[in-house]
C-alpha cells in the first residue's frame, strides 16, 4: 500500500510555505530578538531600521491592536517583549521589508540597550527560588514510605537528560494574505491551525471568523510546530494587517534554532527498592523539568512524564513528583514523546543502577516487572490487552538475545581496545491527549456529482502519513477505489475547532470522524440504490468500487448512483465529529483513565565502543512492535524506523548546549543529527495478530512510541563502558557523547 503524498516530493513539486508563488506586493518580515537572557529594555531606537532601503514598517508591542499574548495553557508569553526580556531570542521588534535580506539587515540596525538582571538556567535552582510554571504535581500508588524497609535493595541516584532540537528541515514559516475588509488568510506551517487562528485573532483583536488558517503540508514538525509555529504566523499577520499587503516570514535555520523551543531537559532524582529476586517494590522519583521562560506546553508535557514514570513496568508502590521550572531559556516545547522519553530514561537508569548494585543483568529486572494484563498504573488505569510481555519475549526468542549476549561477552573477553554492549528497551506508551478535551476531531466529506470525493479533516500532514491513512479509511467506508478520493489541505474554514495534530492521535481521531461521515453518506446512498434497483437498502453493499445486491454486482455504477442521488436531492455532503469514548481524568485526585489504549514494543540495541578514541557505533537495532492492525504498513514502518533514529540521536550525538543563556549549538555544524553513515542496521517487525478495538479499523497510533526505543542505545553503550571499567559506577547523563564516553573511561572521577 503506497502513500500518494510521496510522488510530488520526489518530483520537487510539493509546495511548502516558502515555495508558494509570490503574490503581488509580497513583503517579508524579520525579527529583532533579545540578545540578553533576562533584563529590562532601557532604550529601543528603531529609527535606524525605518530609514533603510526597502523597509516598509517597523513594529513593536505598541503596534499590536489586540492583546500582546500568545500563551496557550497559561497566558504568560507576549508576542513581542514589552519592557522586560526573559530569554535570548525572545522577539522584540518586527521589521517588514521588500526583501528578506533587507528586513534582516534592518532588524540588525535597531539600537537596543538592556539592563541585565540575574538569570537562572538550571531547573533545580529555579525550583529552589520558587520559580515554577505551575504548582508541582504528585501521583501516588500504594505506600512507598512503608515499603522501603521491606526491600532487600534500595538504590538512589540522579539523572540528567538533555534537550533536543527538532530540526524539522522546513524552518518555521507563515504567509499572511489580507482579504476584503478585516479578513485575513494565513498559510502557516503549523500542527495546530486552530491555535494559530485563535491566537492571531487575539493579537489582532478580531473575531476568529475573520481569520482562515490553511495548511497544505509541513516539512517536518515532531512537536516543534504545535505551539511554536504560532508566533511567526502572528508576526506575518500583524504586518499584513498594518500594511494591507501580503507578508511572509521564513526563519533562517540559525534564527529558528536560536529562537524556538526544543525538547525539555530534565534533571531527576530517583529511589528504587527491590526484592532480591529483582521484583521492584517501590519507586520514588522527582522530575525537575526545565520549562524555559514561558509555559508553552510544559504543564501538559509534565503530565505525560507523570503518567509514564513507571515505563513498561508494574510497580505496586509509587510516588512521582514533577516540577515545571521557569528558567531564562527559550520556552521548551512538545517533541515526539512529549515528556514520556524523559521519564522512561529515569526508569531505565534506576533499573540499571539497581542491577549494578545487585550484580545481576538488568534484563532480569526488566523481564520480571513487565506489565501484565490488569496491572494498575499509578494514575489509576488498568492495562488492557497488554503486549508488553509478548513483545519482550518475542525479541528474546526471535533475535536470540542469549546468544547475542554470549557473543558480546566473547568479544569483550578477547578484545582490549573495543567492547560491545547490548540492551533491551521495552516501551509502553499511552494514546490520547492527556488533556481530555482535546480528544475530539471532525471531518467534512463531499461527494461531487461526477462521483469524486473530497475529504477534509483537522489532521495536518507532516510526513507522518495521516493523509494516506485517512484515504484508506474513506475508501474502506465508502467501498470505492482510493483513486476517486482526495484528502484535502487542512483549513479552519472547512473543519473548525481542531485539536493540534499531535499526541500520535491524528489518524485515530480524524480517521474515526472520516469513517462516521462516510458512513452517513453511505447510508443515504444505500437508500437511493435500493430505490433505483427496487430492493431493500439492507441488501445493498458497495465493495471494490462495485454496487452489489447481496453478493451480486448490480447494474449500477458509482457515477450513476451519485447522479441519481443528486437529482433525487439527496445530501452528498456529511460532517462528522468524533470524541474518544470513555477517557476521563480527575486532576484533583490524580486518578482516571486518560488513555484510550497503550502501545507496546521492545527493542534490542547493540553497540560497540572504541576505548582508545572514545567513539562508538550503534551497530544494530531489532524491534518487535505492536501496531495493531496497521492501516498502512509502509507508513507505519517508516514511522517506526524514523522515530527510532530520532531517539538514537537524542541519546548519542544530539547535544543542546547553552552558554549564559545563549544557544551555542545553533547551526547544523554545531548540532549534529544522525546521518545515513551512523544509522544502524534496523530490523523491525510488527506483532502478528495484534488487535485494538479502541481505534479506527483496529489499528494503533504509531507517531511517538518508536522514539523511545532509542533510549536502549544509552544503556547498550553504558554496558560496553562497564565492560572496560567494571570498577566505575554507571553514569546517567544523556546524551552519551564521545566526550562522556572518554571521560568515563579515562577521566578522573
Amino acid at each position, binding site marked *: 500500500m503506497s*502513500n500518494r*503524498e510521496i*510522488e510530488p*516530493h*520526489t*518530483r*520537487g513539486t510539493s509546495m*511548502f510555505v516558502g*515555495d508558494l*508563488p509570490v503574490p503581488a506586493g509580497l513583503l517579508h518580515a524579520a525579527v529583532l530578538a533579545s540578545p540578553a537572557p533576562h533584563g529590562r529594555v532601557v532604550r529601543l531606537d528603531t529609527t535606524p531600521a525605518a530609514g533603510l532601503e526597502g523597509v516598509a514598517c517597523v513594529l513593536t508591542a505598541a503596534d499590536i491592536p489586540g492583546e500582546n499574548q500568545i500563551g496557550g495553557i497559561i497566558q504568560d508569553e507576549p508576542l513581542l517583549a514589552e519592557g522586560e526580556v526573559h530569554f535570548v531570542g525572545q522577539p522584540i521588534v518586527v521589521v517588514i521589508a521588500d526583501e528578506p*535580506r533587507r528586513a534582516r539587515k534592518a532588524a540588525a540596525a535597531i539600537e537596543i540597550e538592556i539592563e541585565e538582571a540575574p538569570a537562572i538556567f538550571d531547573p533545580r535552582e529555579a525550583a529552589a527560588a520558587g520559580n515554577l510554571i505551575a504548582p508541582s504535581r504528585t501521583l501516588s500508588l500504594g505506600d512507598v514510605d512503608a515499603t522501603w524497609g521491606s526491600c532487600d535493595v534500595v538504590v538512589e541516584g540522579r539523572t540528567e537528560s538533555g534537550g533536543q532540537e*527538532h530540526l*524539522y*528541515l*522546513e524552518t518555521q514559516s507563515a504567509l499572511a494574505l489580507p482579504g476584503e475588509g478585516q479578513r485575513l488568510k494565513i498559510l502557516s506551517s503549523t500542527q495546530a491551525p486552530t491555535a494559530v487562528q485563535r491566537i492571531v485573532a487575539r493579537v489582532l483583536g478580531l473575531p476568529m471568523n475573520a481569520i482562515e488558517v490553511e495548511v497544505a*503540508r509541513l*516539512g*517536518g514538525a*515532531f512537536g516543534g510546530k504545535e505551539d511554536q509555529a504560532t508566533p511567526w504566523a502572528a508576526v506575518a499577520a500583524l504586518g499584513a494587517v498594518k500594511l494591507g499587503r501580503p507578508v511572509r516570514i521564513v526563519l*533562517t*535555520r540559525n534564527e529558528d534554532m536560536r529562537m524556538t523551543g526544543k525538547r525539555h531537559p530534565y534533571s531527576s532524582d530517583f529511589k528504587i527498592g527491590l526484592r532480591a529476586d529483582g521484583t521492584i517494590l517501590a519507586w520514588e522519583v522527582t522530575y525537575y523539568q526545565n520549562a524555559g521562560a514561558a509555559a508553552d506546553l510544559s504543564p501538559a508535557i509534565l503530565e505525560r512524564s507523570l503518567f509514564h514514570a513507571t515505563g513498561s513496568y508494574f510497580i505496586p508502590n509509587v510516588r512521582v513528583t514533577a516540577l515545571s521550572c521557569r528558567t531564562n531559556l527559550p520556552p521548551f516545547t512538545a517533541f515526539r514523546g512529549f515528556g514520556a522519553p524523559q521519564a522512561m530514561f529515569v526508569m531505565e537508569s534506576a533499573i540499571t543502577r539497581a542491577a549494578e548494585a545487585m550484580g545481576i543483568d538488568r534484563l532480569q529486572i526488566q523481564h520480571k516487572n513487565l506489565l501484565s494484563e490488569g496491572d494498575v498504573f499509578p494514575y489509576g488505569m488498568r492495562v488492557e490487552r497488554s503486549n508488553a510481555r509478548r513483545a519482550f519475549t518475542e525479541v528474546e526468542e526471535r533475535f536470540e538475545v542469549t546468544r547475542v549476549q554470549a557473543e558480546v561477552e566473547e568479544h569483550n573477553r578477547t578484545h*582490549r*581496545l573495543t567492547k560491545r554492549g547490548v540492551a533491551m528497551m521495552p516501551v509502553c506508551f499511552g494514546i490520547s491527549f492527556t488533556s481530555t478535551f482535546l480528544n475530539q476531531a471532525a471531518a467534512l466529506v463531499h461527494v461531487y456529482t461526477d462521483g469524486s470525493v473530497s475529504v477534509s479533516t483537522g489532521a495536518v500532514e*507532516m*510526513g507522518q*502519513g495521516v493523509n494516506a491513512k485517512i484515504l484508506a479509511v474513506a475508501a474502506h467506508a465508502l467501498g470505492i477505489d482510493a483513486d476517486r478520493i482526495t484528502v484535502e489541505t487542512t483549513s479552519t474554514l472547512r473543519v473548525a475547532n481542531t485539536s493540534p495534530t499531535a499526541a500520535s492521535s491524528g489518524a485515530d481521531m480524524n480517521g474515526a470522524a472520516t469513517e462516521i461521515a462516510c458512513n452517513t453518506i453511505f447510508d443515504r446512498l444505500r437508500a437511493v440504490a435500493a430505490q433505483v434497483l427496487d430492493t431493500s437498502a439492507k441488501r445493498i453493499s458497495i465493495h471494490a468500487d462495485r454496487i452489489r445486491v447481496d453478493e451480486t454486482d448490480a447494474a449500477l455504477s458509482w457515477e450513476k448512483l451519485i447522479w441519481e442521488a443528486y437529482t433525487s436531492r439527496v445530501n452528498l455532503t456529511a460532517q462528522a465529529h468524533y470524541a474518544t469514548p470513555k477517557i476521563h481524568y480527575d486532576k484533583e485526585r490524580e486518578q482516571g483513565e486518560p488513555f484510550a489504549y497503550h502501545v507496546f514494543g521492545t527493542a534490542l540495541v547493540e553497540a560497540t565502543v572504541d*576505548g*582508545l*578514541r*572514545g567513539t562508538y557505533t550503534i551497530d544494530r537495532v531489532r524491534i518487535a512492535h505492536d501496531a495493531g492492525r496497521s492501516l498502512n504498513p509502509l507508513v507505519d*514502518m*517508516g514511522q517506526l*524506523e*524514523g522515530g527510532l*533514529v*530520532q531517539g538514537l540521536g537524542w541519546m548519542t550525538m544530539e*547535544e543542546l*548546549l547553552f552558554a549564559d543563556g545563549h544557544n*551555542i549549538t545553533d*547551526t547544523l*555544524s*554545531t548540532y*549534529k*543529527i*544522525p*546521518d*545515513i*553513515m*551512523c*544509522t544502524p542496521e*534496523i530490523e523491525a517487525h510488527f506483532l502478528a495478530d495484534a488487535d485494538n478495538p479502541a481505534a479506527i479499523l483496529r489499528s494503533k497510533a504509531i507517531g511517538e512510541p518508536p522514539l523511545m526505543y532509542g533510549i536502549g542505545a544509552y544503556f547498550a553503550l553504558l554496558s560496553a563502558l562497564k565492560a*572496560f*571499567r567494571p570498577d566505575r559506577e554507571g553514569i546517567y547523563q544523556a546524551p552519551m*557523547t*564521545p*566526550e562522556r564516553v*572518554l571521560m568515563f*573511561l579515562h*577521566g*578522573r572521577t
Partner: protein
Amino acid sequence: MQRFALNDGLVQAASPSGLPALDFLRQSAGLTGVKHACREGDCGSCVVLLGELDGPTPRYRVVTSCLIPVGALAGRHVVTVEGLDRRDLGPIQRAFVDEGASQCGFCTPGFVVSLTGFLLETESWGEDLAEEAVARNICRCTGYASIRRVIRTILEQLRTAVDPAEERIPALVREGYLPEYFLRAGELLAELEPPALPHVRSERQVVVAGGTDLYVQRPDELAEADVFLVQRRTGPPIWADGDHVYLAASATAEDIKVSQILGRTVGGLDRAMALMGSQPIRRMATVGGNLVNASPIGDMTIILLALDAELGLVSGGAHRSLPLRFFFRGYKDLDLQPGELVEWVRFKAERSDSVFSFEKVSKRTHLDIASVNSAISLRLDGNRIAEACVSAGGVAPVPLQLEDTAAYLEGREPTVDTAIGAATRARAEVSPISDVRGSAAYKRLLLGQLLLAHFHVLFGLEDGLEGKASA
C-alpha cells in the same frame, strides 16, 4: 552577466556574481524543488548537478547550491530536481514511492539529485559507495532505513542493466534515469563560452576560493558582491617537481583524497580525507581556503603541518615562501600581507622510510568538525624513530606542531611505552579551551588518546594501550 545551461535550456543571470546559486535558482528561475534548510552545506537539501565539458560530453558533480556563487555557474550545466523530472517517474523517484522513503518530503529532491549524481559518477554499483554519496543529505523523518532500500533496489536494477564501463550518460538515459536532453548537453555547453580563467582581481571583488566556509560566515554580504573566483586554474592540482610534492592553493580536498601522487607518498591519506566533509564539500573546499581561514581545527591544515609543509605566497609579481608552522601567528591572525594570496603548498617528496597517520574525533563520525584532530609523520631508521613531526588541532588558538612531543619521539623505538610517553607530553604541550566542541579537560585527554591511536594504527600496538593514558 553569467550565461549557463539550466536543465534543458540556456539562461542568463544578471544578479551579482556573489549571489548564492540557491537564491538565483529559487527566486529568479522559480525552481523551488531546490530547498534551503541550512545554508551551510550541511544538509544537502539544495544540491544540484553541475556539469562541465570534459571532451565532447559533460562531467557532472553534485554541489550544494547554497555555497556556490552564481558566478561559478558560468559556462556550465546546472541540473535541478525539476530537470530530472518527467511525466513518468524515473526509477529513483519510483523507488522512493515504493519504499515509502519520503515522509515530509523536504529533503527528498536533494536525495533524488544526489543519487542521480552518484549514478553519473560512480565507478561501480557498490551500495557502500552510494551510501557515502548520500551521506551529504540529512533526513529527519525516515531514519534512512527506507532510503537504504531505495539504494538497494536501484543498484540491483543497474547491475543487470548497465556495465560500469559503458558510456554512462547514454546508458542512464536508456534506463530512464536521465531525461533525453542529457544526450544534447554537450552541444548545449559548446554553445557557451568556456568558463573564464583567472583574471586580474579588481579591488572591490571579494576573493572566493571554495566558498565552503566564506558562504557560511558572510552570505548576506556576498549576495550583493562581485566575487573573484580563485578556484579555476589550468594544470593539475597536485604535482611532483624535484624534491617536492606541490598542492596548488586551489587543489580541493577531493583532489587530495584521490591523488595518486599523494597516495604513493603519504599512506593513509585517502582514509583521512574520507572523514573530512562530504564529497560536494570536499570538491569545493580548497587547500588555500582552508589555510587562510586559519581555523585551529582545519583537517587539511593539520595534515599539512605534520608533513612540515611550506607555503608559497604571491603578491603582484613578488613571491615568497615560509614554513606553514610560522603562518599561524595567533587566533585567526596570519603572516599574510594585504593582497597576498597563497599560491601553493609543498612538502618533501622523499618519504619512503616514513609513515603517516591522521586521527579525528567529532560528535558525529562523518561530516562533522573535529573536537580534536592530530596527524603524525615518522621517519623510521630501522627500529627507531629518526624524525618525528606531530600536529594537533582544537587544542590551542592556532593549529599546532607539537615540538616537545616530536623531540621526545626522536631516537626511540615505537613501543607502548613510547606511545604513552608521547601522549603524556602531547597533553602537557597544549592549552585547549572549553567550547561547543568539548571541555578543555576532554580535549586534552582526547589528544593523548589520538597519539595512542596513531601508534595503534601505525605499529599494531594494542596490549597496554588501554586505560594507561590517564596514568
